[in-house]
């Protein structure tokens, strides 16, 4: 693997793509949203348990490339415990970083800075952001919450 590839496929990303965390449907979820990337056919479904205005738990199922799978997996870890507004801020910070609009900021993004290399691969930016757009949709749909009886 050459250096350019190593910058994209960082060890953390490969690890999460091989063994995605929080993978599976969540029975207790009260928010759910689907993401689809028509360009490459990647699909994912994100489940959230939101209580008192904060994300208590997040999980996902789906089928995608290493970047999109790892991104969803790391998202479910990062979103956990965040108040909804902070989760939405994180979506914006993440998007800004991989789109090359802002520098990777370890303070706000933590481990998620491993995705900074994506900015050099314009065709892969959507792979990285798919789960995050889905997270925003899941949070913003608060008026029409998916009920899980």
């Amino acid at each position: 693997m050459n250096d350019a590839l190593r910058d994209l496929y960082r060890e953390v990303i490969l690890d999460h793509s091989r063994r995605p965390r929080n993978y599976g449907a969540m029975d207790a979820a009260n928010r759910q949203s689907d993401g689809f990337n028509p360009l490459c056919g990647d699909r994912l479904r994100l489940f959230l348990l939101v209580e008192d205005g904060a994300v208590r738990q997040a999980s996902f199922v789906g089928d995608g490339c290493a970047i999109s799978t790892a991104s969803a997996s790391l998202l479910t870890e990062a979103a956990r415990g965040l108040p909804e507004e902070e989760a939405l801020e994180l979506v914006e910070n993440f998007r800004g970083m991989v789109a090359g609009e802002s520098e990777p900021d370890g303070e706000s993004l933590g481990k998620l800075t491993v995705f900074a290399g994506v900015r050099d691969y314009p065709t892969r930016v959507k792979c990285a952001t798919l789960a995050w757009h889905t997270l925003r949709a899941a949070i913003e749909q608060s008026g029409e919450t998916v009920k899980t009886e």
Partner: protein
Amino acid sequence: MIAAPAYDLEKVRADFPILSEEVRGQRIAYLDNAASSQKPRAVLDAVDHVYETGYANIHRGVHVLSERATEHYERSRRRMAKFIGAQSADEVIFVRGTTEGLNLVASSLGRYALREGDEVLLTGMEHHSNIVPWQMVADLTGAKVLAAPVTDRGELDMDGFAALLSDRTRIVSVVHVSNALGTVNPVDEIARLAKERGAYLVLDGAQAAPHLKLDVQELGCDFYCLSGHKMYGPSGIGVLWGKKRLLEAIPPYQGGGEMIRTVSFERTTYAEPPAKFEAGTPNIAGPVGLAAAADYLDGLGIPEVAEHEARVREYAESRLSEIPGLRVVGTAREKAAVVSFVVDGVHPHDLGTVLDQEGVAVRTGHHCTQPLMERFGVPATARASFGLYNTEAEVDRLAAGLRTALEVFRP
């Protein structure tokens, strides 16, 4: 006995300026020809020649440049008529590409032929451009769109196809060569069955034109569409061929200048084909480049090109079969120069990125054939598609790149 002249691959490659481009220190191995092919010097020069010596708007001007441009344009129409075996140049409509050709046929033939309850029969391996336009006209007319099944090898299930044909079938529209799998469909048999039912036959020839010697009259279809950019010509130009009496019968597609005879607010009459279907100022230099591409292909000999491509494809299939966990999707007995594949545990998109780092260009995704991907239970494939300039050494680079990808992604 005189031996056939050997296919001079070195010389062919030298005709394509872009093939000497370097990507990350290596010559590009361009294996994405089913998406779009590169252009030989002769095509680039032909287009330049129009702009440098004879460009103006066509058909209307009385001045010399307009006459020259009109002659360039109409000579190209005659050249393309010969290339596809049309009876007359009036049957050749210049369009933007296969997508526009299919939209034109779906809209005009659809409005002419379809009534509520009628059926349009497609196949499960159609490109979206041969699905969506039919759905659009079906919505307008109350017709139904059906799709014939595809076998596990990626061939058309002819029994299933025949079973879906009925007296309600008014139009059959089928891809000649599948872009996603490379399958060459048995269009003779399809034409025979469609004719038995009195259905019109439309063929999507986007992938066939660069690989197969075409004779639209022998094929037995009513309409045939192709794209210039997939047969080494410019992008933004293609051909729709239709039988003259049908082109006369069906309504126009777009309205505007050039396609009319007389216009008044009470009543407008239309020009004869082909002008009837060429509203507005067309792509003027594009047809000239396309005609040059036809010259180029015929100069090499399409059977010779096809033989070379088959050799490269078979070599690719054998090299790829050595890669653990790789499965070729689409193993039809009659195939053009496409190898679509998936690799266990590695998403096609990641394969594409790793190969790109090695200077190997392939396509990854659903190839605008979502129903077909669904049929094979994959969200996407990686696809290597070969053209007349590809080499076995480029296939070796593909195989090496895939092994690199395995090292990265397999735990």
